[in-house]
């Protein structure tokens, strides 16, 4: 095969290779996106947005994605870790079940409040409700 023929088909092959590369990256990208949504399979439709960070290390408007079961508390192994002295190390639990949210107080020292009302054990939580854990206020919003 002469050089010009070789160059021509090489050129076509190069262009094809470019698209193969793109396909490969797109494939990896979508697989990654899918696996990320799988790993948070329990991810539930809601976000906690900080409306009053008090003296915690959080800042205003920080948002936390929620799982269908989300642990709230001071210690870092909680799903939502709130580094504030008024928050108990294992403060409460948010549960998403059959389309609605429930907050459960896990025997915190300073209590859990929904729209200013103290939660004794469990309470229904609607989107837009503001929940106070100790001095820190968080709002449940749609993602």
């Amino acid at each position, binding site marked *: 095969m002469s050089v*010009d*023929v070789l160059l021509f088909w090489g050129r076509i092959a190069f262009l094809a290779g470019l698209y193969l590369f793109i396909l490969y990256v797109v494939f990896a990208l979508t697989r990654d996106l899918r696996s990320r949504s799988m790993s948070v399979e329990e991810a539930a439709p809601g976000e906690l947005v900080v409306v009053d960070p008090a003296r915690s290390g959080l800042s205003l408007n920080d948002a936390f994605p929620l799982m269908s079961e989300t642990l709230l508390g001071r210690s870092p192994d909680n799903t939502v870790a709130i580094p504030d002295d008024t928050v108990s190390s294992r403060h409460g639990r948010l549960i998403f079940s059959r389309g609605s949210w429930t907050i459960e107080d896990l025997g915190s020292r300073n209590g859990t409040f929904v729209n200013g009302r103290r939660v004794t054990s469990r309470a229904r939580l609607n989107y837009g409700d503001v929940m106070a854990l100790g001095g820190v206020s968080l709002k449940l919003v749609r993602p």
Partner: protein
Amino acid sequence: MNRNIRRLAVVFVVVFGLISLDLVYWQVIDAGNLNSDPRNVLLLEKNERVLRGRIFDRNGITLVGRRVHPDGFVQPVYGDPSLAQTIGYHTFFRFGAVGLESSLNPYLSGKTGTSLQQTYASWLHRPVLGDDVYLTIDDRVQRAAVTAIQTELAANGLAADTPSAAIALNPQNGQVLAMVSKPYFDPTCIGGQFFVGRCVRNIEAIPGHAFVNRVTNGLYPPGSTFKTLTLSAAIDTGIQSLSSQYRGTAATGPFVVDGYTIPNTANNLPPGTTSADLLHAFMWSDNIVFAQVGLKLGRSRFIDYAHRFMLGHRIPFDLPVSVSGVLTPGERFDPVALATSAFGQGNDHVTPLQMALIASTIADGGRMPRPILVKSIKTPSGSVVGGDTSGTLANPINGGTASQVRHAMVEVVNGYYGSGFEAKIPGVTVAGKTGTAQTGNSAPDAWFISFAPAQHPTVAVAVVVEGGGEGAFVASPIARQIMQAALQYGE
């Protein structure tokens, strides 16, 4: 915030979409326009690398070759300058192309069709190959024509650069065998060049307009050669025969029409002759008689026959041809004009090609062949893609008329006191007609039209020498030598 980021992504995708649409516009939709834009340097770059087709004569003698420089630049090599106006030249810049280089450019530059093979070759960046063109020109006849003109100009004491034109064609198929327009030029410094200004100025400085192809674009009064047409019309309509008699002043003149006198010096009769029939009036080229024939024909019949012989029509050819005619636009055809037109003066203006076609019509039994210059066009792979467009242009007169006129033309060359005696070829019967056309300049133009062999013609010729004087002395020997060459080398 995540929602906003996603929206930002959408905005970017939309703008990228717009960009790609714009790219499609420039690279696909508008690409054709941009690629053929004459201001595009890339186009020039591409064109100068085209392996332009070569041009050969009918026997494969190279008329235009090509030389490929090491950097890929392709230059034409011109063989015969006497074909300069016919073949023309091709340039890359504003001087464009003329002649066959222009009219055959699509073939020569390989731009005909887009076969898969051509497309593939362009993808591979292989140089574009033009098609080779084989002309009907016979290099030997062409050279004979050039030599004949040179010899006869010298023999008659005319300057070597006297403007003149000659064409030879085969009346049976219209194939042009030779075509000379003097002065000609060497196109080497124009063809395939970038900077041609000085060369063009030098050629323009040659006296006599070297760029003009006199065969196709020179318009001359035909003089007495035009009597061939008048005679054909008179016999074809039946109002006259070769034996129609003219006696006394009807033959000798002077002849007065509408107060305009045609003097008896125009009768051209042999000394002592006072009468002539139409045949002898033609042989001796008697203007007095032919003025009367024109008047007898009348305005409408005369114009009708002029049209039948393609005067007033654009003749299809491989080169642009000026339109011959018997009237200038807007002119009234009064009896004086009619009478003088009948013997080739008045406002008659013809190209040598036109006269050669009139001769061909008589030669081929009343059929006017379509003149052609291209014998065949061959692609680089050897297949024939075009060329031979031979055919019939018109059938102005019937065969009987043609054979009578042919007889008259044979007598012009061979008869007693015939004006075309210089055209005689030993062993071959030649038919012809001389012409001495008054132009208003001091010396008249010399004309000769002829064909041979008279009974089965294979060559017809028209020759004009500007300011050449008597057609019988300058033009007919040129025609003779051209015919001899054509007969010698003919197939």
